[in-house]
């Protein structure tokens, strides 16, 4: 991202810190900033802050006609909106390119990895399907919009509730949330994005760059993985020439982050719904259609039992123990890389093994 204007002094200071494997905000090389996720009453609205970077997401739905070639699949669209203010240093046409690039990566992440079961969005095959749109707005850019927006998208999808629909022949009836409880979307897995920034001809790498580091990076490498150790997407940007071993290392680091974040996202959303559930759904609704009475009870009880079973992966997830043993691969110590990256590994191996021991204990409990 060398097009951005950066003073020589800033550049020298930041690069010198990186060469010493330090960061200006006192994080370690593989530490992300603190993530704060907030919801509000409207389903699908989430506000995520990654350090100082702030992104809000809102999911909305619409009933449309499906594509002819995919007659029983709904649609999902992601739209990232960024005003020029967060990118005040970039020139005009670059802003467009930057936004388009991010938008492309986010969409590919969600669409191509099949994280949302599009068939469950079908109402009437060939005629009517739900079309989900996620609007993302960047309120503050302090580096790494991609990760923040990705987390916001996933939280928003997980938080969103789709109105109940009943089909009578060729007519459909959409129930409001007071008549029938809206049901959650069927999310099969969470593809979480982790961004790595590379500096000084690709010798040094950092996770989650803040705005200073992002201005000075040679290029970025973003991996999107889910907790089943599947790679959902890889994108490289900037002027970057990587070796295979660096890619391997990034994958390993990313996987650790992914596990933490997946648990976090699930926890946050289920906690939120636990707190609001008693308030909104204590009283049965007054307006009820007689012949739907039984169905109403069934639908409310089924949606209650649905909540803990929201994640139904297509592939049976391999148990965490197997994943941990994969991470303990012996070649981690014997990677032949440049000196600097190997010292980075040396500092991280201790951290990794200690983390893995903690994971082991936690899983065995």
């Amino acid at each position, binding site marked *: 991202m060398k097009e951005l204007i950066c003073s020589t002094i800033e550049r020298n200071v930041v690069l010198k810190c990186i060469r010493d494997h330090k960061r200006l905000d006192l994080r370690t090389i593989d530490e992300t900033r603190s993530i704060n996720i907030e919801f509000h009453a409207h389903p699908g609205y989430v506000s995520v802050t990654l350090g100082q970077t702030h992104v809000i997401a809102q999911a909305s739905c619409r009933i449309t006609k499906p594509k002819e070639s995919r007659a*029983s699949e709904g649609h999902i669209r992601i739209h990232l909106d960024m005003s020029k203010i967060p990118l005040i240093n970039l020139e005009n046409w670059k802003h467009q390119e930057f936004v388009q*690039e991010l938008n492309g990566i986010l969409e590919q992440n969600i669409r*191509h990895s099949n994280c949302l079961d599009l068939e469950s969005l079908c109402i009437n095959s*060939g005629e009517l399907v739900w079309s989900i749109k996620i609007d993302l707005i960047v309120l503050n850019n302090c580096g790494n919009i991609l990760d923040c927006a990705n987390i916001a998208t996933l939280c928003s999808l997980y938080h969103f509730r789709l109105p109940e629909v009943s089909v009578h022949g060729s007519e459909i009836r959409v129930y409001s949330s007071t008549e029938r409880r809206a049901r959650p979307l069927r999310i099969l897995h969470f593809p979480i994005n982790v961004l790595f920034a590379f500096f000084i001809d690709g010798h040094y790498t950092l996770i989650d760059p803040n705005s200073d580091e992002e201005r000075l990076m040679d290029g970025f490498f973003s991996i999107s993985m889910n907790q089943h*150790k599947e790679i959902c997407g890889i*994108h*490289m940007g900037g002027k970057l*020439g*990587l070796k295979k071993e660096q890619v391997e290392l990034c994958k390993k680091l990313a996987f650790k982050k992914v596990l933490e974040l997946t648990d976090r996202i699930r926890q946050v959303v289920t906690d939120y719904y636990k707190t609001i559930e008693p308030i909104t759904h204590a009283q049965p609704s007054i307006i009820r259609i007689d012949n739907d009475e039984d169905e109403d009870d069934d639908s409310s009880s089924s949606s209650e039992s649905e909540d803990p079973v929201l994640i139904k992966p297509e*592939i049976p997830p391999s148990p965490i123990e197997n994943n941990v043993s994969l991470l303990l691969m012996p070649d981690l110590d014997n990677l032949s890389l440049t000196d600097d990256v190997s010292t980075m590994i040396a500092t991280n191996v201790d951290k990794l093994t200690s983390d893995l021991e903690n994971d082991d204990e936690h899983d065995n409990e």
Partner: protein
Amino acid sequence: MSTPMDTSSLPIKNKSNQLTSTLTTDYIVGSDLISIEGYRQDGRKPNELRHFRVSFNVVPDADGSCYMEHGNCKLLATIYGPYEGESRSNQEQAIITCDFSMTSYCVSERRLRTFGDMKSQRLQMAIQRVFQQAIITETYPKSQIDIYLKILQSDGNDYSPCVNATTLAFINAGIPMKDFVCSSTVGYIQNKCIIDLNQQEEQQKSPQLTLTIMPQRDDIVALTCESRVHHDIYNEMLDAATRANLQLFDLMKQAVINQLKTVLHVL
């Protein structure tokens, strides 16, 4: 090991919809792609590249040009430059711009929008980025180099043939580069890695990977993986892609040497 591939090929069979016309051209059932004897639909083995033919100097006005046929994908890459850049251009390095367009007859259905759409813009940005990295831009400060790409016939993935053709056009133009830039795609169908996908194979919902490397320096310049693939399979695919790129590199090097031989022979 239950691979992700199995579950994605099964739904294709179950999704047959009686309400709409079955557009089977959209995706063919995965089991047909590699026959029992191990040959693909177009008669190649899984680790075989498509037919590769190159000719240089096709556009005499340009500083460098290359016409390339990679299987059914025919394209033209021309380089203009380096020439004096605009006043706000970079003082230390050359700027590389890329312009990508397709002809309206390049695919089976006539295309009305041949440039400026999302795919073209993304490809432009990607190629510009790759070559900003690969060209030794410090030798031409304050100047600009233009890449023009024109697809005459398209067979699925355009990005890889474009990168290869641009490399050869740069060599034809005599602009110094750090190394060749080779690109190829790899897919994973029926538990086998197949390289150099054509359109039919690409339209499958199987894992795919596009790898762009500088073969002699062993540097990965661009890596795009847009489908969900398990970690172990990904490693296999990466290896297969590297081998494919090395094969391509040999072919490209041979083409350049042949070109030099003919030129020197004429002199």
